[in-house]
């Protein structure tokens, strides 16, 4: 028998593991099954626990932290309802490949399966939305499981990992052995990329007449910002980005075509349609990008670089797959390429598309429009702020008009399209990034989906500007209703049922301002940008009936792109 002194409490092992993983912040919410952990947390000084007001908020905050920093976000919640409240956030992180580790309390092992108080089979529930999940059944496996959880979350294609901790496991003792190495024989991400495939890609690109780089979030995750910039500039290659890819290449760069896809620029989509070589870098041919796959870049030779083999040939069959880390492969391709392709004519063509159909919006009638606000924000922050958008029209306008210049400055829910992401994610990001302004942008609908986290923002005095783009509608749904659903504005009008957002902000202890006057936009933005060390809220009351253009209808081909509205009707 070992003497108890040699043994360590489960809760201490837990925090010691987090310390070794260099965890700085936990986003969490206590409850019965994790009381022991909170008891020990009380005396932990090497990390900070951020108390949210809803477990969904904890997960989005962890995502915001992870996306902004590249480090894993960590969540701690109780069993049952605490665990089920994390589900949306976990699904979101899964879709957007965000490295987070979610620790859920669980009822004591002997009660599992008994419908015990606050029992939920969170392992079963999260199986299809996690990269992997673990139920720790023996205290001896606690340390190695935590090690594996972080390793799996952060390597290869990143993603969420859930670790379920039965109460009795945490309450027991064992000798602490920290596994230096992780041993998972079925999990070995391939980073290198096949040499011959890379050579072939370089040859194809060198010979291209109309090449195009189609860049996704993978480039940002791999840290390939510099490599991409060098490769594109050396070879004068046009670069278009997905929603998650924005920031992987400077939006102000002359080689940037902006975003492609459903609400992408006219010229980016034309370039996709007409290119002869399409190089997909860390992107996954999502349906919001491709529209109708049969008509997507039909004539192009397609090269697909991705760390996740399942992404290849899933939606679009490609000619040359390269599985590996995109940063590494970009560097290799750059050194392999023998000569730059001659892209002079191609650029002339692209520029003519730009002239043919530039991004424009109505700015003469004196009414406040989102595009204008975003343009001003982009100018004032020089594209250097961290912008955290929610889901809807404001998200697309921000993607179109904000010129992201750096990776990890564009945080948004892309794959799952989770309304309610922005407010908590911005709070999480503020703990990761201290040298850039954090700006949350939400619609009036989505803002209310995690509105409770405003108190987290003010309690921790996070320096976040919360912008509400209030069009008094669930705008993006309204847009689809007008375009595709016989103008039946069914349950999307919030004009009579929105709260007073300034009062809301103030009730949460946040300095808040509102305007519907374009002339006041700059001064309000200046005022907010001058606020330091605490949150501030700005409500912009914008035109109700505006729609986001260009738009490729869902499942349509790029040739069906609508570039502007035919008969705008003014709504009051």
């Amino acid at each position, binding site marked *: 028998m070992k003497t108890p002194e040699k043994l360590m409490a489960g809760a201490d092992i837990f925090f010691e593991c987090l310390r070794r993983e260099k965890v700085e912040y936990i986003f969490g919410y206590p409850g019965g099954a994790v009381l022991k952990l909170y008891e020990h947390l009380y005396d932990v000084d090497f990390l900070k626990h951020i108390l949210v007001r809803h477990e969904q908020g904890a997960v989005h905050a962890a995502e915001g932290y992870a996306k902004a920093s590249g480090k894993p976000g960590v969540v701690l919640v109780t069993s049952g309802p605490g665990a089920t409240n994390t589900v949306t956030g976990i699904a979101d992180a899964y879709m957007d490949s965000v490295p987070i580790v979610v620790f859920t309390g669980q009822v004591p092992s002997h009660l599992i399966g008994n419908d015990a108080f606050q029992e939920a089979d969170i*392992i079963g529930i999260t199986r*299809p939305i996690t990269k992997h999940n673990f139920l720790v059944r023996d205290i001896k496996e606690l340390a190695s499981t935590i090690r594996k959880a972080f390793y799996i979350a952060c390597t290869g294609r990143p993603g969420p990992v859930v670790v379920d901790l039965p109460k009795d496991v945490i309450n027991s003792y064992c000798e602490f052995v920290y596994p230096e190495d*992780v*041993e998972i*024989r079925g999990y070995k991400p391939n980073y290198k990329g096949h040499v011959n495939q890379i050579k072939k890609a370089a040859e194809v690109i060198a010979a291209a007449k109309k090449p195009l780089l189609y860049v996704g979030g993978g480039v940002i995750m791999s840290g390939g910002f510099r490599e991409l910039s060098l490769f594109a500039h050396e070879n004068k290659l046009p670069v278009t980005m997905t929603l998650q890819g924005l920031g992987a290449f400077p939006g102000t760069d002359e080689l940037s075509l902006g975003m492609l896809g459903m609400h992408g620029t006219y010229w980016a989509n034309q370039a996709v349609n007409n290119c002869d070589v399409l190089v997909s870098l860390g992107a996954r041919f999502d349906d919001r990008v491709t529209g109708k796959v049969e008509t997507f870049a039909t004539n192009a030779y397609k090269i697909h670089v991705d760390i996740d*083999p399942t992404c290849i*040939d899933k939606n679009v069959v490609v000619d040359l797959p390269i599985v590996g880390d995109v940063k590494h492969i970009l560097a290799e391709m750059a050194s392999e390429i023998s000569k730059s392709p001659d892209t002079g004519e191609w650029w002339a063509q692209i520029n003519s598309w730009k002239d043919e159909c530039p991004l424009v919006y109505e700015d003469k009638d004196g009414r406040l429009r989102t595009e204008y606000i975003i343009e001003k924000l982009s100018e004032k922050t020089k594209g250097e702020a961290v912008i955290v958008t929610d889901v809807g029209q404001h998200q697309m306008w921000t993607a179109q008009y904000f010129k992201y210049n750096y990776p990890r400055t564009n945080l948004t829910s892309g794959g799952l399209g989770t309304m309610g992401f922005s407010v908590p994610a911005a709070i999480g990001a503020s703990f990761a990034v201290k040298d850039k302004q954090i700006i949350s942008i939400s619609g009036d609908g989505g803002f209310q989906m995690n509105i409770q986290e405003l108190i987290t923002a003010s309690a921790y005095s996070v320096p976040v500007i919360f912008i509400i783009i209030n069009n008094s509608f669930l705008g993006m749904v309204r847009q689809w209703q007008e375009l595709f659903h016989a103008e039946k504005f069914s349950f999307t009008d919030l004009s009579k049922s929105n709260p007073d957002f300034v009062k809301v902000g103030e009730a949460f202890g946040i300095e808040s301002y509102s305007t519907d006057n374009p002339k006041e936009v700059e001064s309000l933005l200046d005022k907010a940008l001058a606020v330091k060390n605490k949150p501030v809220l700005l409500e912009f009351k914008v035109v109700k009936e505006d729609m986001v253009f260009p738009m490729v209808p869902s499942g349509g081909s790029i040739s069906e792109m609508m570039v502007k509205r035919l008969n705008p009707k003014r709504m009051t």
Partner: protein
Amino acid sequence: MKHTISVLVENHFGAFDRVATMFSGKGFNIKSISVGETEISEVSRMTIVTDGDDQIIDQVVKQLNRLVDTIKVVDLSETYHVERELALISVGMHKGSMEELKNICDIFRGNIVDITIKSMMIEITGPPDKIDAAVNVLAPFGIKEMARTGIVALRRGEQVKIQKKENVT
């Protein structure tokens, strides 16, 4: 097209569920699935029969590989391999049909494993089409109950080697 896929998985809690969840979540078909031990105690082999065109099978294999608990995935349909299935078939019997049933059982090299005045239970092993044939022949006697294991399969000659445990960091 039908494919028989052999999957070596860690014998972990939930490993089977992960595979099943992946199939249902991605909308892939499972025609049969069998799980059992292998020569290594902490590794199980799942034999899955699925169908789909080349692109679907390519995805099935990749998605299986993506699961953390998966050690090795082989599409046996691309190799020489042996497939076997076992069936227990309980058929109705009356005095006059006993001999005939015994004959059928012999032809299929089955075993009679249970018998009552009214029924006979036959055990048949073999490739799935042999079992299908037996079922067809037995159907007129009235099949009361049937249980089939689903296919187990192994590559001929050189076996699918399990990687030695090694460290990754």
